[in-house]
Structure formats: C-alpha cells, structure tokens
C-alpha cells in the first residue's frame, strides 16, 4: 500500500469513527457487551504498542537497555504523579543520557 493512501485512509477513518460516535443512536452505548469491548480494546492495543516499541526492532525482539531505562523513568515519574509533559521529557532524557554514556 502506498504511504499516502495509508496516511489519508488513517486520517479519514479516524474522523469517521469520531463522527459515527457523535451521530450514533444513544441506545448503542447502553449495551454492556459493546461498551466493555470498546473500552477494553485500547487497553490491549496500548499495552501491545508499549511492549513492541520498547522491546522490538522490526520483527526482531531486542533488549535495548537505554530504551528500557527511558520507560523506567516514565514509570517513576508517573508514580510521582508528574504532568504528562514531564513524563515524556524524563523518558527521552534518560534514554539520551544512557546512550551518551555508552549503554544500549
């Protein structure tokens, strides 16, 4: 698939999903099974993305200590209830510093 097609399909598709929610009949959300699945889906997807972006390089599983350190810093700042932006900066900074000193 051409990258432009992927970009536009993702963009339009995401908008249509939002619009579908806004325009859908109210009764749909009251179905417990529908609601539970839609709410559980992002949890599974986000966890999968975290795991892969931390431990995978293409189709290969890798142990990148610097990247793992960055994620650990994110966990730490989240535990300390730091703002969103601080969490991101801590992750990037930790990974950068670990790489600068030759780790990972």
């Amino acid at each position, binding site marked *: *698939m051409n*990258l*432009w*097609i*992927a*970009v*536009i399909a*993702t*963009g339009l*598709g*995401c*908008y249509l*999903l*939002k*619009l*579908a929610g*806004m*325009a*859908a009949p*109210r009764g749909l*959300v009251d179905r417990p*099974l529908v*609601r539970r*699945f*839609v*709410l*559980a*889906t*992002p*949890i*599974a*997807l*986000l*966890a*999968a*993305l*975290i795991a*892969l972006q*931390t431990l*995978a390089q*293409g*189709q*290969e*599983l890798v142990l990148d200590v*610097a*990247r793992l350190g*960055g*994620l650990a810093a*994110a*966990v730490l700042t989240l535990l300390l*209830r730091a*703002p*969103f*932006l601080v*969490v*991101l900066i801590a*992750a*990037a900074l930790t990974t950068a510093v670990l*790489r*600068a000193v030759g780790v990972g």
Partner: protein
Amino acid sequence: MKLYNLTISPPIRDGLGVGLAVGLSGLAFGTTAVTAGMSVAQACVLSLLCFSGASQFALAAVVAGGGDLAAGTLGALLLGGRNALYGLRLSGELGWRGGRRIVAAHGVIDETAAITLPYREQTAVRAAFTSTFATLYLMWNLTTALGALAADSIGSPEALGIDAVGPAIFLALLWPRLTEGRRVMLVALLGAGIALATTPWLPPGVPVLLAVVAALAGTGERGDSGETGEAGPGGAAGAGPTQSREVRP
C-alpha cells in the same frame, strides 16, 4: 498565569492548560514520523486529518518497522475506535446538531473527553470542549510541522532519546486505567504478551492487531474494565487524572 486565573472561566482555563501541555507532544510526533520514513507533508496531513495521537504514533511505528501498511492503517483505526465511544457520550452533553456537530466530531479525542465530562451544565461543557479542541488542534499541527522540519537537521534522533517518547506517551495514556483493577491489568499483560510472542513470525503491524483478542478477556461478565472506565472522565486514558488534576481550579 496567575492573572489568567482571575479572568478566565475554569472550563476554558482547563482546556487551555491541557491543550498547551499535550500539544507539545506533537513535536515528538513530527520528529518520529519523519524519522520513520514519512515526508514532512505526510506527517502534517496525518495530524490535520487524523488528530489522534495514539493512532498516528501507531502508524508511524509500522512505517518505521517497514511493516504492512494495510495492517498499520487497520491498527491505527482500531486505536481510534475509542473516540467513537467518547462521541457517543459527548454528543448528548454538547447537544449540537448539523454542521456544528460535523466540525465538533473532529475534536472528540482522549483529552477533550477527559476535560469535558466532569462538567454538567451545557454552557460549561461547550466552553471546555471548544477551548480544548481549539488549543490542542492548533498546537498539535503547529508542533507536528516544527518537529517534522527539525527531524532533518537532527543528526540522530536516537541520540536524543526520541524513540523512547512513543512508548512513554502510550504508557501515560494507559496509566490511569491500570490502577482500576485486575481485569484491566490482565487485558494489558495479555495484549503485550500476544504482541511480543507473535512479532518474530508475523509482519510488523499484525501483532498489534492480534492483541485485540486480549480485549475479549475484559469483555466477559463482571468485567471491571468497562464499568470503572465509565466512572472516570479520563475514559480510555487521555490526559488522565494526572493531567486533569493538574489543571483543576
């Protein structure tokens, strides 16, 4: 900012606060997208049309891994599916019809849902939604462009730890949900496990899709993931409690 506290109404101030903070992660997206292999124009068009961080990062990750773009697109859309649920709820709160609803739909994302849902009065709901949407949309697209343009001049994004920002964003989005109960934790661990276990055997992008199977574990009877998720304004994450608390009056 103290001066603003006295002059701007709380819903609008909340929206501005989150808008400014979260919009800045657009810098990371712009850089990540171009480093992954998208052009500056593609990164910008994606931010303009999609306007949903998690989906955009997910697509960029597949592009970076040289994965199947159809699977990548499907994965991004599945992630965007939660916005439909926010839409179901926000539609009634906002009470807009016709053209207004068509425009407002684009702003239905984690952060606007998180900021808007605590308000009960329609005027406040509309003010919070509009200010969050406007600020976030402006910041997200501006910073995407800046990050994308800067990516070329940054020699090695990895040296700056940019590759750690993506997972950190996803973790921050997931974080408020993880404390909700064992069921949520089970779904998360299963999802991560399925993705990791299938990665060596399948093209990039597909393992993330397969992780949806884990969501079925959270769909059974007495699933606490759904019920408690409804209770919090963060819904499936977004700015989450941390962010909302930070900007509360």
